[in-house]
């Protein structure tokens, strides 16, 4: 892991085309301005972690045979 110190107004260049600027610092809050190609998605860490968690739980859920059997009688009415 690389650890750097930057002041307000200073920037980083990541790879060829990701620019990260420290736009503002107020107390313990930092505002970051990021320029990156559309192909690069940027997530708040905690949000990324929750989605990873949800996806993994979905993977570990009931299998198709169980689902098919139990829901032969019940399907949510197309509620349109």
């Amino acid at each position: 892991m690389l650890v750097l110190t930057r002041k307000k107004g200073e920037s980083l260049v990541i790879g060829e085309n990701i620019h990260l600027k420290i736009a503002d610092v107020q107390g313990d809050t930092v505002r970051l301005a990021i320029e990156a190609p559309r192909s690069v998605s940027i997530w708040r860490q905690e949000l990324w972690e929750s989605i990873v968690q949800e996806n993994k739980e979905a993977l570990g859920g009931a299998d198709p045979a169980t689902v098919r059997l139990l829901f032969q009688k019940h399907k949510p009415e197309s509620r349109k």
Partner: protein
Amino acid sequence: MAHIETSRFGKLEYYDKDLLLFPEGIPGFTQCTKWIIAGEESHFIKWMQSVEYGDVALPVTSPEFVDPKFHLKIHQEELDFLGAQEKGDLFVLVVVRIPPEMPWEMTANLAAPVVLCTTTRKGRQIVSSEDQPRFREYVFPEETRIAMAEEYQKVSVNPSPEYPEETLWEENPHAGPDA
């Protein structure tokens, strides 16, 4: 035509044109860049099956089944990434979590839908900017869940014909097997 050996569906055959292309994978599965949709036509639960990892498949459904008023909020950058000209080019699925012991309690992740572009077949799981993100929205309304739970209990409590004595023994620990 290609095929993949899967843990849930056995051998699945598919054409390249059926592939869904996820350049970044999805969170937790960033190595899985190619998927197909498996499952029965008429069933409301389909499965996003990885064609690179046979044991990776996620249950998915249409967000409207869960919330008829579901509205996808998506940024222009995301439309550009997917190669979509407009929202009409998009097809949306939500990942469903199905607790094995209580499948009626299944929940859908409306906060992070899987968005696909029908023209390019590119996809990405995005965060739909809702004020209160709903990661676990019940698929079935409460009355239905209660009814299904009861139906399931009736099936489990009736002891199977082979082991009636053992069930009685467990329910009344003070009674001996001859009681």
